[in-house]
């Protein structure tokens, strides 16, 4: 009996387990609040709307369509995953890379300009996205380590600089009749990421490319880099205690710059695999930064800042984001899906709060149990 108890407690205290149940709890509360808001706005359609968000591609009754839209969700989720990896990687060194959005923008700009404007093959374009985004991240890292400029401030400012620069750059490859860049499929077929037969699995959804696989590989790569290598050891030491890192002679300044560069590279690669799949074109003159990067922050935290956790968290967030488009627009205004998702994502930030709460509860329970055991013993 007693043994069983301690065993149960030890699972509850397991970090990964705690993160998982905390994440699930956050999601549930997010849905609940979303549902209540829907009820307030229009009680009639609330049930359907929340179901539509949860169902996403299952909205289609035919398996062919469902598979096709699952593919689309996966493509978007893979870009989101890259952004989440970018955020969590920087976080391991104690940096908050809110510049992931700007790095994503630069990645988009570089990949599209290289593919459409310069007619480069996909691998060169993808590499360009990675390099330019890494350079952008490096700027914030450099400012942080040598001039102690807060990375959040410099990142936010660079986000806007990147957006307008990319708008300017991509206006050279604009379609004449629309505000979008020229579609890759007609402008440069070599610029598209290869499908390697993956499109066949998803009912000929041609946007499903090796990008999806690459993003999962990147997650595993990040996981290994952080846990198994000397470099990861240094980064974690710097992140957890930069004074100790300096004391034992690690080059903490250099580490900060490299981290921000890798973080930027991950975000840039995310943009690359998204835009080079041909699923979307860049809209010239857009005045808001694509939400992908910011959602990456939510995905990273929902995944418990763990690369493997981020895979599931990214998929989930993309799932409900795509699901939001199926909400009945005759009953709710068009922004409703974004609002719902905002609720859920906002709640995702509470994962660590719930973990803390759970630990406190466990401590109290242990204390009580110990007290009871004592009383029993004394009696």
């Amino acid at each position, binding site marked *: 009996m007693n043994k069983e108890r301690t065993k149960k407690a030890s699972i509850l205290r397991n970090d990964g387990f705690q993160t998982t149940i905390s994440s699930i709890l956050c999601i549930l509360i997010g849905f609940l609040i979303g549902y209540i808001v829907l009820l307030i706005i229009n009680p009639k359609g609330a049930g359907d709307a929340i179901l539509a968000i949860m169902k996403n591609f299952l909205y289609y009754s035919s398996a062919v369509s469902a598979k096709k839209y699952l593919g689309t969700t996966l493509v978007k989720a893979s870009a989101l995953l890259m952004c989440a990896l970018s955020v969590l990687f920087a976080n391991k060194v104690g940096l908050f890379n809110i510049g992931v959005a700007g790095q994503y923008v630069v990645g988009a700009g570089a990949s599209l300009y290289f593919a459409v404007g310069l007619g480069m093959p996909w691998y060169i374009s993808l590499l360009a996205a990675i390099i330019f985004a890494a350079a952008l991240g490096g700027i914030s890292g450099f400012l942080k380590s040598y001039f102690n400029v807060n990375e959040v401030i410099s990142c936010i400012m660079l986000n806007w600089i990147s957006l307008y620069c990319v708008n300017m750059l991509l206006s050279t490859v604009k379609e004449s009749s629309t505000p979008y860049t020229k579609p890759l499929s007609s402008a440069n077929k070599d610029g598209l990421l290869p499908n390697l037969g993956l499109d066949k699995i998803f009912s000929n959804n041609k946007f499903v490319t090796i990008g999806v696989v690459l993003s999962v590989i990147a997650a595993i790569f990040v996981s290994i880099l952080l846990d*198994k*290598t*000397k*470099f990861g*050891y240094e980064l*974690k*030491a710097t992140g*957890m*205690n930069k*004074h*100790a*890192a*300096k*004391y*034992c*002679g*690690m*080059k903490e300044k250099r580490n900060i710059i490299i981290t921000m560069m890798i973080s930027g590279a991950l975000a840039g690669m995310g943009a690359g695999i998204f835009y080079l799949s041909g699923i979307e074109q860049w809209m010239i003159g857009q005045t808001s930064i694509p939400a992908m990067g910011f959602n990456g922050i939510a995905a990273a935290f929902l995944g418990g800042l763990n690369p493997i956790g981020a895979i599931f968290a990214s998929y989930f967030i993309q799932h409900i984001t795509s699901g939001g488009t199926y909400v009945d627009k005759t009953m709710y205004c068009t922004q409703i899906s974004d609002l719902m998702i905002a609720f859920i994502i906002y709640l995702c930030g509470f994962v660590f709060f719930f973990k803390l709460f759970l630990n406190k509860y466990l*401590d109290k329970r*242990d*204390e009580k149990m*110990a*007290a009871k055991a*004592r009383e029993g013993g004394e009696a």
Partner: protein
Amino acid sequence: MIKEAENLRFLNLKICGKRNQIMDNYAIEMLGITKKFPGIIANDNITLQVKKGEIHALLGENGAGKSTLMSILFGFYQPDGGEIKKDGKKIKINNPNEANALGIGMVHQHFKLVECFTVLDNIILGAETTKGGFLQKKEAKKKVLELSEKYGLYVDPDAIIENITVGMQQRTEILKMLYRDNEILIFDEPTAVLTPQEIKELMAIMKNLAAEGKSILFITHKLAEIMEAADRCSVLRKGKYIGTVDVKDTTPEELSAMMVGRNVSLVVEKKPSEPGNVVLDVKNMSVASQRGKKDAVKNVSLQVRRGEIVCIAGIDGNGQTEFIYGLSGLEPVKSGMIMMNGKDITRMPIRKRLTSGMSHIPEDRHKHGLVLDFSLEDNIVLQRYFEPQFTNKFGFLKRNSIREYANRLIKQYDVRSGQGPATKARDMSGGNQQKAIIAREIDKNPEILIAVQPTRGLDVGAVEYIHKQLVAQRDAGKGVLLVSFELDEVMNLADRILVMYEGEIVGEFSPGQVSVEELGLYMAGSKRMEVGAHE
């Protein structure tokens, strides 16, 4: 002053003597207090009875349960068993405000003062008298001056805290308690930051307060102070109550044995040193201060030879920290030169210094010494993880070798922890954290070992162990540079003593030639000699 204090003590003893005849005249009583936390019993049936007008010492090693007991008295925790009585009446203290209302006050080890406020502002903070929303500072000042005169607590009410001495800051803290009419005054390790002269003054003040009928609870691990000031002493060990003794009937040895549970040698045994070649040579080093414009370290020159322990004595905050930062490379030096084994290391990167013969036991083990969220094994290889034995040529860590190495050190240096090498450093006791650092630094086989406050906050057993290790390093022909704020440690370990005051070396002594009082005068800056570099 001292004579006055002796008179007061005499008076005090007389009062106590009278009081002793009336049983149960206790100001505060904690009877059979038990407090359990998951996995440990912090307080196990502890009884502490403080008489009115006495100085009652509470003695115990780190982790003996002193803090928990005081937290219960202050209402931070509720006891699982036992009761608290004030003046014979049972009371329940639910939070610190209630403790305050009952007249219980405390001077914390680290003062809780607002640095940029005046002494007066700090004293009235939280207990301000107002009229129509306006502060009545005049009245407050009058009361403070009255108290200050009555108890011999000299302060300047209008001085700003950051400009006054540590001693005056402490008197401000005491006045804070008196201003609130507290009857039971708790002093938590009050002498840690004071010079010997200031300690004497404090003892006199405490006796004065006791003579005026205040009850004083004096938490400490310094036996000499108990012998000097306290009337009675209660001893805790590992959460258990060992006993209460009349100080006049006991000896330091007996108290120490009660505290540790075995006989501990209070004096470090060591042979006379046999100094060899110079291993560390510092010439005219200056280090800029991180705060003000003045240099924190001014033109310091010193040498450390193989086979000797050179000790820098001084009061905390006189440039020792910055001096060591300069030596280890944590801060750049402004001018001067550092030679290690004849090589100029003034501008050498930290990693290079550490791999070419320097070991550094840092002052703050939580800030510099450990990555608290790393496992013990990861902390043990913190200085060597990059060596080929721990990292392969592709940059992957060799986890098995790290585990093996950690296990060897854990065994050799008797580092105790819950889950061995996988324990998080945060979950280890202070003594074992320090042992891990010492194991790591000594096992590097350094030429020069720099140790800053290596025994801070550790219990007697651990202190004894660490002192032995330092002497062993010296005997193995290493140079040891020790920075310590504890005079006992300085006198016990040093082969040569340098006194640092306001960033300068103001005296050099052999331990046999100088008394603690003499050293105190140099530490406080009231005496100095010309100390040049030895060529």
